């Protein structure tokens, strides 16, 4: 190893080294506790008991499918809203700068604040209900808070994550040269054909990045779920924290949920990215 390489690796230690050790130790901690080690009370020994217990629990499967649903729908909706906006902002026009910073404003709003604003807006005594009643659309306020489908959570996720997708997609869309889209136009391709055969394949990387990051964030969501989500079902993060606090074997059981949550986030987002790639390839070839 030459001197410069050695120097570089030494320099990585305080920053990157610390990150690797931190994440490695935390994941090992979860793995160890899920099979019965590091018990804070009682004896520590290897056992599959906690895995068997949690996998038989139907709360887990409900939380799993719920988180999967919220994450998939939020990721797909966010990019579907971001694409037309990114294409629209591709050519500079008067006020484009203003519009784009307006669209990115939710990035500056804290998740919990967003959740509060939303709940405040739609609550039984809230603004929306007042307007509905005053307009005579409904005779009595309707109950919209903590809806049982998780629509509130999805609205919040999309509101908060769409600007992020827009940020990634705007960069990708802007790097496509006009000559290529103009050439397609001259050859008689309509707007939709150009989108499917040129824009989508050329922005695939940014699209996948946006989908993966939004999926992971939404799959691990706790705050939106607790404030605006359904009461009858938990997200995986919520289940993990609740089990940890309430169960006698809290740490061990929540460790199994933590590992399942990480696997869901990683495998789910990878699958979503892969399927997107296949669909776009298929669409471009057709």
């Amino acid at each position, binding site marked *: 190893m030459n001197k*410069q390489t050695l120097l570089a690796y030494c320099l990585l230690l305080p920053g990157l080294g610390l990150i690797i050790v931190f*994440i490695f130790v935390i994941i090992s901690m979860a793995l160890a506790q899920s099979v019965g080690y590091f018990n804070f009370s009682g004896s520590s020994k290897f056992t599959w008991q906690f895995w068997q217990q949690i996998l038989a629990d139907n709360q887990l499967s409900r939380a799993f499918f719920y988180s999967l649903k919220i994450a998939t729908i939020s990721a797909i909706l966010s990019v579907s809203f971001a694409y037309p906006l990114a294409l629209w902002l591709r050519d500079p026009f008067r006020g484009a700068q203003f519009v784009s910073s307006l669209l990115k404003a939710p990035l500056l709003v804290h998740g919990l604040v967003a959740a509060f604003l939303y709940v*405040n807006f739609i609550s039984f*005594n809230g603004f929306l209900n007042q307007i509905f009643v005053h307009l005579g659309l409904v005779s009595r306020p309707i109950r919209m808070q903590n809806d049982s489908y998780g629509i509130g959570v999805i609205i919040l996720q999309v509101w908060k994550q769409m600007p992020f997708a827009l940020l990634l997609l705007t960069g990708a869309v802007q790097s496509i040269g006009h000559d290529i889209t103009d050439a397609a136009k001259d050859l008689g391709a309509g707007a939709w054909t150009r989108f499917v055969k040129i824009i989508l394949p050329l922005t695939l990387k940014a699209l996948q990045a946006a989908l993966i990051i939004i999926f992971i964030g939404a799959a691990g969501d706790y705050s939106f779920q607790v404030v605006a989500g359904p009461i009858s079902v938990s997200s995986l993060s919520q289940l993990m924290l609740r089990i940890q606090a309430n169960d006698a074997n809290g740490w061990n059981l929540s460790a199994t949920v933590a590992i399942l949550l990480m696997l869901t986030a990683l495998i789910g987002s990878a699958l979503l990215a892969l399927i997107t790639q296949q669909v776009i390839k298929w669409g471009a070839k057709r």
Partner: protein
Amino acid sequence: MNKPCTNRLIILLVIGFCCISLVLPFSLAMLWSLVDPGHPWSYPHILPPVLSLQRWVDIWTTTSLPQALLHSYLLAPCVALCSVLLALPTAYAFGRLEFPGKQAAQLISLLPLIVPSFVVALFFSSLLNVLGIYSRFLGILIGQTVLFIPYAIRILSVSFSLIRQEIIDATRDLGGGPITVFKTAYLPVLKPGLLASIIMIFILSIEEFAIAFVVGSPDFVTVPTILYSYLGYNFIRSNAAVVSLILVVPNIFLMLLMERFLKARNTAVITGKG
């Protein structure tokens, strides 16, 4: 179809949407924070009957908000400083050195961003238990510092890569020692990046919820955890409105400040002067 006309229509639609999804909810929060405790705002009042600053006074004098603010604003500068200091060597290596495995290393440095934050928070707190670290402040400080190093690495490695070798060489040729080289070639280019990453991590730390909540609860409060306590099961609307505003408004100003530093970087690149 007339293009400028449709464009204007879409702009109006976007602005309208932002008004409904941003301006209106914030105005409502503002109003709710000003509702007088003696005159509740409920149906059929379209607007609050009496406005006063009583809520702000109440929440300041009767809740742990001052303490939460103190904790948050003490933690944030410490976290920002530690993260940036720890990130500097790695950022230098990423920005100025070539070595095998650099791309993989850059990818791995983003690891904290893809592990769900509550998993990190929960098993970090269990790690603190094992290690016997019971200081909440220290625990949150360590956790947030490591979690935010990637942001500092990203901003600073770009800064390091912008430093021009000619200027370093010229300074050396003119007889400048290491300190002079650092002052003339490094510092002017690094400064905006340093300030930007400090502000960025400051904001991230103020807003961080998972670690502050899991490690800190129940006795160590920060601004987001106190906001959380007013949401959910015991939803106290006016208090939540006050804390929301306290959480959002300063950070927006800080964010604007940060953008200015990052823009200043561009001029440094173009002119090479910094």
